[in-house]
């Protein structure tokens, strides 16, 4: 008797806990869902108050974006994010491998440096970069943004890839050396091929960080190299608030981000705590 009572109580507790979690999840998602739904609303219904709750979905907000400068800003976002990511991987991966295999004394200093470069507020870099770029003519160029994005991407690549190399066995490399392969060849033929998945994960994180950047694009670009996040905010400053377009633009910016990050949520924490916590 007592056990069945206990079991019933446990079931009831579980039901209550589940209900609470489901309700909280819905509350958490509502603001986001509202925004996405808004991007499919005709302009009239956006302002129609409660009467606009039911509406005929339309793509007009999206189509009006493509006749706009928004397309070129998406292109800028894509090019600057991917080029900076590729550069960071090319430069950072060999260095991360060396850091993992060589015996280092300044372990803690390294951690602190990487952590500090991730923690520094963007404005600390934006001011000197702004001054130098003004002088060098790199303001409002894609190259300028690509270089600035290296400030956080390089540190991220070094940290994540070194963690990965730390966890891989050295046996294969040593066997290759014994067989007479050069150090460089061993790195290219043995080490790199087995790093594929780690490289992809790191690349996605770097891409997302660059894609999400708002501050650098706001301060270091004006027109030509302006990225999508800044362009969407510009819709707010034009005459009359074009909420439909803002919602559509915002939705387009977050689609790749949502898809990638939910696919690899396991690695999210490793990326965000780079420098302090080994993933």
């Amino acid at each position, binding site marked *: 008797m007592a056990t069945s009572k206990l079991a019933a109580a446990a079931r009831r507790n579980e039901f209550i806990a589940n209900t609470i979690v489901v309700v909280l999840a819905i509350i958490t998602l509502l603001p986001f869902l509202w925004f996405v739904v808004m991007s499919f609303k005709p302009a009239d219904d956006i302002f129609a108050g409660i009467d606009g709750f039911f509406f005929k979905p339309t793509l007009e907000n999206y189509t009006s974006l493509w006749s706009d400068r928004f397309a070129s800003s998406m292109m800028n976002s894509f090019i600057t994010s991917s080029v900076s990511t590729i550069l960071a991987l090319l430069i950072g991966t060999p260095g991360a491998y060396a850091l993992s295999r060589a015996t280092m004394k300044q372990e803690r200093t390294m951690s602190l440096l990487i952590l500090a470069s991730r923690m520094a*507020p963007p404005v*600390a870099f934006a001011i000197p970069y702004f001054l130098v770029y003004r002088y060098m003519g790199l303001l409002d160029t894609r190259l300028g943004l690509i270089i600035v994005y290296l400030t956080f991407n390089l540190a991220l690549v070094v940290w994540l890839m070194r963690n990965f190399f730390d966890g891989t066995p050295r046996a294969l490399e040593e066997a290759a050396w014994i067989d007479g392969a050069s150090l460089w060849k061993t790195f290219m033929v043995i080490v790199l091929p087995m790093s594929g998945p780690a490289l992809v994960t790191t690349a996605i994180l770097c891409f997302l960080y660059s894609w999400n950047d708002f501050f650098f694009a706001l301060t270091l670009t004006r027109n030509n190299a302006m990225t999508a996040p800044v362009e969407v905010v510009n819709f707010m400053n034009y005459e009359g608030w074009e909420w439909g377009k803002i919602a559509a633009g915002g939705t387009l910016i977050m689609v790749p981000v949502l898809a990638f990050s939910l696919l690899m949520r396991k690695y999210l924490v490793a990326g965000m705590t780079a420098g302090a916590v080994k993933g």
Partner: protein
Amino acid sequence: MSAVEVGNRGRSGPGSARGVYAKAGVLPVFEKQRQRFFWLLLAPVLAILGVVTLLPTLYLLITSFTPLNLANPATAWDFSDPLVNYRTLLTDDRLHNSLWVQAKLSLVTVVLQLLFGLGIALLLNVRTPLMNALRTSFLVPMVLPPIVVAIIWKVLYSPDISPAWWLFQVLGWNIQTPITNAAWALSAIVVADTWEWFPFTMLIILAALAMMPEEQREAAVVDGASTWQLTWYITLPYLKQTLMVAGLFRLIDSIKTFPLIYILTDGGPGSVTEVSNYYIFVQSFSFSYIGYSSAVTMVLLAMIVVLSWVIVRAVSGGSNGDQ
């Protein structure tokens, strides 16, 4: 010595190759080659990291000793009174106010994010398909681009398009939007920031919970401990260090808060939501007082380095830093 044997030894840990080659008698040449090779790989990344991060920081430090104002080019390399900016910041009321706003915002958001993160992590810490699906939905706010989060909350706080205000209208309540109200603007930012970042603390806590050893809990269950007792006496003490690290991370990150304030309140009304980071942005990119804002940035950077150092210590020094 066969390659297999070398392989087995190699697995035993760092530096083992050294021993192998020492015995084989090829150490000096090969080891030197190896070290040179590693430096060759490391040199480009160190050089470029130095150029893109250390040089700008140095430049920032240098400009902080000048009264540089973009409207007046002659001020660029004027070191006649190097500490002028640092003296100014001691008496700058608007800066002091911004630090106070920052302290309030950081403390309240970190505490709220730890509470929500912990609460939801504890509820979610069951391996059922439903919970796994829900975990993912809780992550959405954190992975959205920060600028989109800011716009979402701008929508929610704009009475003419916000579903909340439609509801208020139906109920006959006349409520002013908090973002233009000096008494509520900071709270509005706190709500949005908490929504955006509680998933971060939740994720870190969930990761720690997944590693929690079962024995203690099982022993306590056998002894008839209730769920509350289990949580209070076993789970929470176990999570102490995790909570501290997650809190420190959020604390440092909260110093960077920008898009929310830029979009929602623009630092206003007045300066009630103007945090230090935002104040620097206004001084440098709106007023062009580069020299002065560099000095303020240096102070902020110093604070961040100290906090980062605390994190590195906390993580490497702790006994259960095994996330």
